[in-house]
C-alpha cells in the first residue's frame, strides 16, 4: 500500500517536473520603435506600462492545411497594427495536444505588444 502511494507521488513529481521543464517561452522584440503604452495597467512583469494582448487558445486547422497564420488587427489594443514584441510560450500540454491530434489542434499561448503610434 505504502509502496503504491510512493510510486504515485514519484509519478506526480515527475509529471510536474516534465510539465514545467517542457514549458518555456521565447520573446522577440524590435530594436526600433516603442511599445504601445497602457497608462492604466499596473502589471509588474517585463511588460509593465505596455499594452499587452494575450492570446491563449487552441487553433483547429483543416486536414489539408499545413499551418496557419494569426492576423494582427488594428484596434484599441493595437493602434498601429504593427508588432513591437511577441512572446510565444511552448507548453508540455500544447506539444501533447499537437502530437495526439496529428497537428490539427495547436495550442497558441502568445503575448504581443504593438508599436506605439507616431504622429
Amino acid at each position, binding site marked *: 500500500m505504502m509502496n503504491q502511494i510512493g510510486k504515485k507521488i514519484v509519478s506526480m513529481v515527475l509529471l510536474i517536473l516534465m510539465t514545467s521543464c517542457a514549458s518555456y517561452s521565447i520573446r522577440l522584440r524590435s*530594436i526600433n*520603435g516603442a511599445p504601445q*503604452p497602457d497608462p492604466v495597467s*499596473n502589471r509588474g512583469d*517585463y511588460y*509593465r506600462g505596455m499594452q499587452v494582448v494575450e492570446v491563449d487558445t487552441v487553433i483547429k486547422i483543416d486536414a489539408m492545411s499545413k499551418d496557419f497564420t494569426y492576423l494582427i488587427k488594428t484596434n484599441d489594443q493595437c493602434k498601429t497594427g504593427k508588432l513591437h514584441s511577441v512572446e510565444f510560450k511552448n507548453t508540455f500540454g500544447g506539444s501533447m495536444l499537437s502530437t495526439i491530434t496529428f497537428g490539427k489542434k495547436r495550442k497558441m499561448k502568445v503575448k504581443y505588444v504593438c508599436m506605439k*503610434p507616431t504622429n
Partner: protein
Amino acid sequence: MATTKTHALHTWDTLHNNGPFPLKKLYITELEGDGIIPNRIDRYNDAAQEIQRLIKETHEANQGFRAYGSAWSMNNIAHQKDRMHYNGFMNMHIPIQNEHLHANSNYLSSNLFLFECGTTIKRVSEVLSAHGKSLKTSGASNGQTIAGCISTGVHGSAINVGAIQDYVVGLNIITGPLQDDIIYLERESAPALTTAFANKISKRVIRDDKLFNAALVSLGSFGFIHGVVIEAEPRFLLKRYVKKINKETAMQLADTLDFKNSNFKIPEETDTEGKGLTPYHYKIFINPYNTEDTDCVVELMYKKPYSPNYDDPFPIIKQSLYRDLIHLFTKMAEHLPNSIPWLVKKLRKTILPKVDEVLTGTLPEIFWDAPYQGPAFACSVGINHTDSGKTIDLLSELTRNEGPIPGIFGMRFVKQSNATLAFSKFPVTCMLEIDGVLWKKTRKIMSLEEYSRRIIEVLKQNDIPFTIHWGKNSDWAYPNLVTHMYGEKKVNDWKQARSTILSDDMAELFANKFIKTVGLYKKEPHTNEANDLLV
C-alpha cells in the same frame, strides 16, 4: 478633434513602483488623425485646445492638474492627487524651416525641431536620425518623454555638453484655459523662432532669459509644456570603452578631469603628442562593499564623425533575470542585510558593463532601451566634480557602516546648466548616484528615506555643497533643503518667474504635494510682468 479618455482611478504609480499615490482621474489624450487634420500646425493647435478644455474642466471642479509622460521619476514629482494627464500619445514633431528662423538667431534652422511634450527620447532620436541629426546627449536610456526630461533635469555623462534641458531653445506652454493662455517662451539673448511662426502655435510670445531659465527645469509646475524646440547637431558616433583601472587614478580623473596628464590613457584615444584625449562621456562604477579591490570599472566614450560602416552594436540576445530571483534578493536584503555585499557581488555581471568591451554606435544605439526589472530606487546627488573623490569615500563609508543598502554607485559628469534650478549647477557637476532594488524598512535595515536623510546630513556635516536629482529618491521634506542647495536668490527667482507666468488660480492648479513639500510653492501674487515682456 483630439480626444481624451477619462479614467476614474484610486491610485497611480511610477514605472519603478515608488508609489502608489492617490488619484481621482486620469486623462489620456490622443491626437486627431492626420487624414482628418493634415496640417501639422492645425493638428498641434487642436491638441492644445483639448488640453485647455481639460484644464477648464479641472479648474471648475476646483481640483489640481498635472501632466506626466513615462512616469520614470522615482518620487512624487509627477504626481497630483486630483487629476493627472498622460501625454505619451502627444508625439508630433515639426522641423523648423529657414523662413521660421528669427533674424537675430545664431542657430541653423536645419538643427531646430519642435517636439510635442509626449515624444520619447527614442522617438526624438528616430526623427533626428532620419534628418541626419542627433541629440547632443541623453540619459542612460531612452524611454523618458522630452517634457519629462527637461522638467526634472535628466542628464547623461557628457562632460562638455550638459543635461537635456541645455539644448532646449524654446518652450510652448499652456498656462491656463483662456484663449491667451498659450505662450511661446525663448531667450531674449538667443532667439530661435520668428514672432510670426511662434504666433502660429501660441497667443503670446515672450523673449526673456530669466523666465526661460526658470521654466526650463520647472518640475512640471509652470503649466502644461506642450512643445519643446530643441537644437540638434549632425549625427555622430560614439566609441565606447569599458576598462578596469586603479581606483585612485579613476578618482583623480574625476577630481581634475585632466585626461591629458593622467597615467591612464587609451592608446587609440591620444593626441599627436601621445597625451590622453578628454572623452565625451566618463562614468565610474563603485561597489561600496568591495574594499579590497584597488581597481574599479570605468566607461569612456569618444565622439567620432558619423560613417555608416561600423559593426552592429546590438547583441542578438538580451537576457533578463528571473523576477522571482530579484524578489528573493530583495527579501534577503530586508531580513539579512549582511548578505547585501554578497548579493551585489553575485549580481555584478548584470549590473556592470563587460570589461574590455569596445562598441561603436550612434547616441541612441549606445543609450538604448532599459527594460523594467522590478521595483527600484535611486539616490543621486550633484557635487562639484572637484569633490568627487572625497564624496564617494564619505558616502561609501555611510553605506557600509549604517547600511548596507542594496545598490552600487555610479558617477557621471555634466557641464553646468543655465536653468535656475538645474541640479547640474557646478562648472562640471559630478552626479553621484546609488541605485538598486527597492527595499522595505525592517528591524534590520533602515528605510530609504532614512538613508537619504543621512546622505544629506553627511554632505552638510562635511561642508560639501550639493544638489539632488529632482526625479530621484530623497528625504525631500528635509528642512530648508532646496534653499540650502540653490540659495535664496535662485529659489525666489524661480518662484517669481512661476508667479509671472501663471495666474493665482493656475499656480494652485499646477501645484502638487512635491513642490509644497520642498518649499517651492508660495502664494506670490501674480504679476503682470509677463505682459510687459510680450513681443
